[in-house]
C-alpha cells in the first residue's frame, strides 16, 4: 500500500521539496523536540533546500541493490541518531526528500542489522505526496 507524505518545505523555485511520512511524522517531530534537535533539523532542511552538499549531515545509504534512493539525515554525537529518508525525482524534475523512519541510536560506525533492516524498509516504501 502506498504511504502518504506531507510537504513541509519547498525551495523558492519549487525544484526541491522536503516531505514527511504521515505515519511516522508525529514520532519524528516529538523526538526532535525532546532531544532538542529541532534547530539542527531545520538547518539540515535548509541545506537540502539550497542543494548544499555535506556528507557529515546528509548522505546516501545505498548499501546494496535493494536500498536505492535511501538517504539519511545524520545527528552525530552521543545519541548518534539517523532519520532515514527516501529521495524521489518527479517527472518535472522536482527532487523530493521524504523524511521516513527514525533510528534513535546508531550504535556502530558500520551499518549493522538494525540499520540494514530500516534502510531496506524505507527502500520498499512507495509514496503518494500531498
Amino acid at each position, binding site marked *: 500500500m502506498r504511504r*502518504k507524505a506531507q510537504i513541509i518545505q519547498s525551495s523558492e523555485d519549487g525544484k526541491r521539496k522536503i516531505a514527511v511520512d504521515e505515519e511516522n511524522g508525529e514520532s519524528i517531530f516529538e523526538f526532535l523536540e525532546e532531544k532538542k534537535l529541532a534547530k539542527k533539523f531545520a538547518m539540515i532542511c535548509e541545506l537540502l533546500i539550497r542543494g*548544499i552538499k555535506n556528507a557529515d549531515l546528509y548522505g546516501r545509504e545505498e548499501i546494496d541493490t535493494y536500498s536505492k534512493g535511501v538517504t539519511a539525515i545524520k545527528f*552525530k554525537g552521543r545519541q548518534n541518531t539517523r532519520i532515514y529518508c527516501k529521495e524521489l525525482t518527479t517527472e518535472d524534475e522536482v527532487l523530493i526528500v521524504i523524511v521516513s523512519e527514525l533510528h534513535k541510536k546508531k550504535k556502530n560506525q558500520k551499518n549493522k542489522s538494525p540499520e540494514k533492516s530500516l534502510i531496506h524498509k524505507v527502500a520498499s516504501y512507495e509514496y503518494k505526496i500531498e
Partner: protein
Amino acid sequence: MSKSDHIKEKFNSLFSSISEKDRSDIDAKVLMFRFLEIVEEERKQKNFSRKDLAESMGVSPAFVSQLFNGDKLLNLVHLAKLQKALGIEFEIKNEAIREENFKDYIPKGDGKGVWVYKPFVEPDYEKMETLPEAGECFNIVA
C-alpha cells in the same frame, strides 16, 4: 483536524518557533557550509585527509569534524589558511535579493523586442518632485 494537517502544522511550528538568534546562527552555518562544500571537493581532488586539513588550519581533527557537523563556526583566519592549503581562492560576489517576485513576469516578444509586463503601481505624486512627462516610462522592471 486531519492527520495530514496535524503533521503539517507540527512541522510548520517547528520551523516558525526558531528564534531570531537561532535563525542567524543557522544562516551563518549555511554560509559556512557553502565554503565547506568547496573545501571538501578540493580536499578529495587533492587526496588530502581531514587530518591534513586540520594540520594546515592549525586546529585539531576533532575541530574539523565539529565544523562539518555544524557544531562550530569557521572564522576568516581558518578560511585564509584553507585557501593556502588547498591552493584555491574563494571568489566573492554579491547578489541582491529582490523583494519582488519576478518569476510571474514572463517576458513576451512581439517581433520588435522583448517586453516584461508587471502590474502598474500608482506612484505617490505628492512625493514626486516633478511629474513624469506624457509617455515617459517609469517604474520599469530592470
